[in-house]
């Protein structure tokens, strides 16, 4: 029997839905693309972080759009309204980003990305330096490997745990569907990943990032995706490449450690920063800097893009 739920809360102050929506089909995979701002304005590519979706920018993006930018964002594969894919990888996310950019303009544009989205755009900027003018990373600059000094046997045990957890998830995920709940329950679940964000905001995210099925609300994100993971990649490799970035970089850093953050500090980054870099660390701010302090972040970004 269908239970009756309250609808998610009304949008918070300052929230603005995208002005336009379209989709980009990449080799049969459909990506949902959103735009804020004048259709004939200069484009700007905006990338969300892992386990987020473009509409987490519903407050931040309009602030850039109101300054005249045509802000273009998209739901990464498996996230938001984009297709769930059979395979996910860093390279695939960067290629999807390029597909969205190709469908927007062939001219170089500024890249702005949060968390993993910032890291993907750095990768894209390094692979295609002719497509980018400036780069803003919102708490998406690499850190060192966590706990580099743990003993080998301890590292082996951690790897064993990650592997068995990941494989168990893969075996389950074949018929897996996300757990349904009320909007309030979904907001509470997300609150564990976003402990600093207000309940009102989390409920708003449910209204744009979840859908209502017959048995309740579910986040749209692909249940096959799983936080954490393992693989051969080392964050220090990303750090080592950073000095070669060919465009000015604005790096915003959080100062409060959070589950989704990378704990990057200016001190770690200092030896790797390209010549034209500005780093701003936000005091008493968590990983979602643009959600906690949208106006301050937008002002910094607009000033940087106007240089």
């Amino acid at each position, binding site marked *: 029997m269908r239970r009756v739920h309250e609808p998610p809360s009304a949008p918070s102050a300052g929230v603005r839905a995208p002005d336009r929506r379209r989709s980009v089909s990449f*080799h*049969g995979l459909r990506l949902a693309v959103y735009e804020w701002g004048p259709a004939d304005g200069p484009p700007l590519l905006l990338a969300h972080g892992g386990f987020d979706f473009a509409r987490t920018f519903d407050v931040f993006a309009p602030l850039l759009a109101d300054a005249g930018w045509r802000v273009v964002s998209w739901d990464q594969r498996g996230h938001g309204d984009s297709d769930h894919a059979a395979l*996910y990888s860093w390279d695939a996310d960067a290629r999807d980003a390029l597909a969205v950019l190709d469908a927007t303009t062939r001219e170089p544009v500024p890249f702005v990305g949060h968390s993993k989205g910032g890291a993907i755009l750095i*990768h894209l900027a390094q692979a295609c330096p002719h497509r980018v003018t400036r780069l803003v990373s919102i708490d998406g600059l690499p850190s060192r490997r966590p706990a580099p000094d743990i003993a080998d046997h301890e590292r082996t045990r951690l790897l064993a745990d990650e592997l068995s957890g990941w494989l168990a998830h893969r*075996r389950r*995920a074949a018929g897996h569907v996300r757990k349904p709940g009320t909007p309030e329950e979904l907001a509470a679940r997300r609150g564990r990943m976003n402990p600093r964000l207000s309940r009102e905001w989390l409920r708003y995210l449910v209204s744009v990032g979840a859908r209502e099925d017959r048995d309740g609300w579910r986040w749209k994100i692909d249940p096959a995706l799983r936080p954490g993971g393992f693989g051969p990649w080392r964050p220090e490799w990303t750090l080592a490449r950073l000095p070669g970035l060919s465009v000015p970089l604005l790096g915003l850093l959080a100062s409060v450690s959070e589950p989704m953050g990378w704990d990057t500090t200016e001190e770690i980054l200092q030896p790797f920063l390209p010549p034209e870099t500005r780093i701003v660390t936000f005091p008493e701010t968590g990983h979602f800097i643009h959600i906690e302090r949208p106006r301050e972040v937008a002002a910094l970004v607009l000033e940087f893009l106007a240089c």
Partner: protein
Amino acid sequence: MLTKRLRHCRVELALHRLREGGGRALLLLHGLGERAPARPPAQVEAWPGPIWALDFTGHGGSTLPRGGGYTCEALMGDADAALAELGEATLVGRGLGAWIALLAAGARPRAVRGAILADGPGLAGGGPRPTSPMIPFVEADAATPPDPFALAELSRDVRPPEYACAFVRLANERSGLARPFTVCAVERPEWLRAILDEPGVEGAALPAALAAYAAAS
């Protein structure tokens, strides 16, 4: 030839039985761009038990996914789906399949009763350290396997020696086997040279390796 269809997330995998028999299975993992052979290759015919071969994602009779995104970790999940079906198995991996056999043996040390690493396409991957960032251009959607995304992406994946050695340590500590890995490959990319220096890894010819694993309980 019997073919079982296995589910690995959104991918349907083809697992082929090349030869019936009792006892522990031999599971063949093909190289990059290859597919499971139609008949047991002559080199493995001496195996006493049943012989199975898996088509990896994007290869042979398995799903061709849309838009790429291949990782060796996902292919390790393919191998794990086959292990879930077969229970215990001894692995013979060619090229890319040798690297996947290494990962699977470390991740499932109880199910993998010996991994034989042999020459084949994709043995070196993208080398021990990252190469320059690039976004491989893949022109058209392939109607037939192998998936061009697989060829592009799985020939660029990084295979650091220390990452390889971590999987050897897992198998050494948890499989109970004295020699979880046997290297038959003549080509020796850096990861393969590195694991040959680890305990539990030895070089041998394929017939001797098969005989040793067939005899081991």
